[in-house]
């Protein structure tokens, strides 16, 4: 990248785009272990691609309505993930990256900077999916199906459109509701879009038609409504199978959206950034005495602090509660359809698993995500006492959620509910203790990526949850 930049005119659009691509590439690099895992996965994927290519060598892939609809369904799902990623990248660009001060203080037009940033967002979006799809698609294309090279322009068009949509949504919300709401909204919407695919597919599978994936549900719906078997909706399918006109139309359309986005938001981009750099929190009118904030005892003080920090970070709280989405299909199944009894052991197991996840998350925030560790270190309290208070706080915060499934079980088996509750508490406590034992300080905002920090604690938490969940499921099954 440095070599290319050295040969481009400094300060130009292309130069800036290459700079953004360089940043997008470097942002992906995590650690040596991740790099090796990534490399192994890449080799494995390529191997799968070569095997698939060899297997499909003699078989013709014929364009037709079914394939076109299938590619359209896949493109829609892919786009939902891409918009999610683009939303998060846009948030990062506006609120976290430190380079906009530098760029906007340079003699470059804000519109040029916006265009380069859009390319950077698109590049970071396309990278994730290209690494997953292309190692399989390219060997298949190279080994007898050259038309499938059309997946490359399709992916580029989707990424560019996704980047534009993500940035447009972010800037639109900033304009309508201000930067604070935009940040929270973006993070929540990102989480929802990611979770929606799972939820929709699970709810669909509870509809009495057997288990189906989200992609298949979407495919069936599109086919039933004849969407994608011809006309513009068929363009992704045609492009993916090597139709150059369709590929050109899609790329042209994406470029048009790109131009339109940079034209529409060229000015508001600067305004949004200026707003974002302003205070993100409201100034509150001071009222009343301060005594209400003082509590006797370490646990009460610790719980009040942890609770406030959680509820005042809606995006973070939402990311945790989003895990409860996984409860929805189980609960629906237990409460309806007249076939709840055989599901009780599964509910008991799920209860422990969810409690382990929740307490682990809360404990991570309280212990590893502590904002002021030095304050606790200089306080006249033993470290063990602080950790115990944090564990109890994490357990207390998880209690309302931990009661959901035992209550559902209690409708059928009160004794089973009691056992489940006990095992849920044990599983939660074990998860919290593991998190404390393998704590690894990190900023709270890295919550989503925290598992990459401690593989041991992830595995142990899962094992502990499986152990206590197994006991709960077995006991509930025996009790009946």
């Amino acid at each position: 990248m440095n070599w290319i930049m050295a040969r481009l005119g400094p300060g130009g659009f292309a130069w800036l785009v290459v700079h953004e691509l360089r940043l997008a590439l470097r942002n992906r690099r995590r650690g040596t272990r991740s790099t090796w895992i990534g490399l192994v996965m890449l080799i494995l994927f390529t191997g799968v691609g070569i095997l698939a290519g060899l297997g499909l060598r003699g078989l013709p892939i014929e364009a037709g309505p079914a394939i076109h609809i299938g590619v359209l369904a896949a493109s829609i799902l892919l786009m939902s993930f891409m918009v999610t990623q683009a939303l998060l990248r846009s948030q990062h660009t506006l609120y976290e990256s430190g380079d906009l001060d530098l760029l906007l203080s340079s003699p470059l037009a804000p519109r040029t900077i916006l265009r380069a940033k859009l390319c950077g967002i698109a590049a970071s979006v396309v990278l994730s999916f290209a690494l997953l799809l292309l190692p399989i698609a390219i060997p298949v294309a190279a080994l007898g199906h050259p038309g499938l090279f059309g997946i490359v322009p399709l992916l580029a068009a989707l990424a560019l459109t996704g980047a534009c949509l993500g940035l447009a949504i972010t800037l639109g919300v900033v304009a309508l509701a201000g930067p604070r709401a935009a940040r929270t909204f973006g993070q929540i919407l990102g989480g929802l879009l990611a979770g929606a695919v799972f939820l929709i597919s699970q709810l669909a599978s509870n509809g009495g038609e057997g288990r189906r994936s989200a992609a298949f549900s979407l495919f069936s719906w599109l086919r039933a409504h004849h969407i994608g078997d011809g006309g513009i909706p068929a363009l992704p399918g045609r492009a993916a199978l090597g139709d150059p006109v369709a590929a050109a139309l899609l790329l042209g359309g994406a470029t048009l959206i790109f131009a339109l986005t940079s034209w529409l938001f060229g000015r508001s981009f600067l305004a949004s950034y200026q707003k974002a750099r302003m205070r993100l929190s409201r100034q509150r009118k001071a009222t009343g005495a301060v005594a209400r904030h003082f509590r006797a005892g370490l646990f009460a003080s610790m719980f009040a602090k942890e609770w406030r920090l959680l509820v005042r970070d809606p995006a973070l709280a939402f990311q945790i509660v989003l895990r409860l989405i996984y409860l929805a299909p189980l609960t629906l199944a237990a409460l309806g359809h007249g076939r709840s009894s055989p599901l009780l052991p599964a509910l008991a197991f799920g209860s422990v698993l969810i409690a382990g996840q929740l307490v682990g998350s809360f404990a991570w925030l309280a212990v590893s995500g502590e904002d002021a560790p030095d304050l606790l270190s200089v306080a006249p309290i033993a470290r063990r006492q602080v950790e115990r208070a944090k564990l109890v706080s994490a357990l207390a915060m998880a209690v309302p959620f931990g009661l959901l499934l035992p209550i559902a079980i209690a409708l059928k088996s009160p004794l089973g509910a009691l056992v489940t509750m006990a095992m849920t508490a044990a599983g939660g406590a074990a998860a919290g203790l593991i998190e404390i034992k393998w704590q690894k300080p990190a900023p709270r905002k890295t919550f989503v990526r925290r598992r990459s920090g401690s593989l041991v604690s992830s595995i142990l938490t899962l094992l502990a949850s499986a152990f206590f969940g197994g006991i709960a499921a077995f006991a509930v099954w025996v009790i009946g």
Partner: protein
Amino acid sequence: MTQPALAVKGLRKSFDKPVIAGLDLEVAAGELYALLGPNGAGKTTTLRMVTGLTRPDSGSIHIFGIDALADPLAAKAVTAWLPDEPMLYDKLTPSEYLGFVAGLWRIPPAEAAPEAERLLKWLELWDSRDTRCETFSRGMKQKVALAGALIHRPRLLILDEPLTGLDAAMARAVKDALRAAVDNGATVVVTTHILEVAERLADRIGIIGDGKLLAEGTLDQLRAQAGSDEMTLEDAFIKLTQAPQ
């Protein structure tokens, strides 16, 4: 004879290389002591060892006669630490932060709440007491952290570069707070790069370099050690820190 507020003897600490190499330091009770030294001299490391945040390789630390290495909790109970980066929670308001700190030091609410009210008013934070710290300027954050350090009425207050990044009015407020703490019987140890602050505020000044105490005393005593009664503190500092060891 009264016990010194802080007595450090033969303190040593190495990371990749020796940072503190046999430091001896004594601060009398009720004194405002300024610790000066060039960048990398070991000022912050020394203070972090005194507050129990870093374990020394060898040496002893006594705070009002309490062995801080053998009984750290007792030592911490009478000490407050204010680093250059305030130890705050951005999502908490000043009142809530003070409530939390009081909980850590186990101050009964009936005692801590009126003290918090007094500190918030005194540091001109009263009107902002219900606003989250994330909206505050650096100076306001520093004042909230100072209120947190004072809420449990520490006998020894240790501050690392408390005036960095503050405007003149904020810096004056912090300096007044330190002087008032000393007038109320507390002992203050402060590091600073602003020599004028040490010159005007401190009862005694210590200069460290290469992990050792190079010179110590009142301003006049430092001038004498540097070889001229006419020198400014800046001249004396440069001469003492650049002199061959």
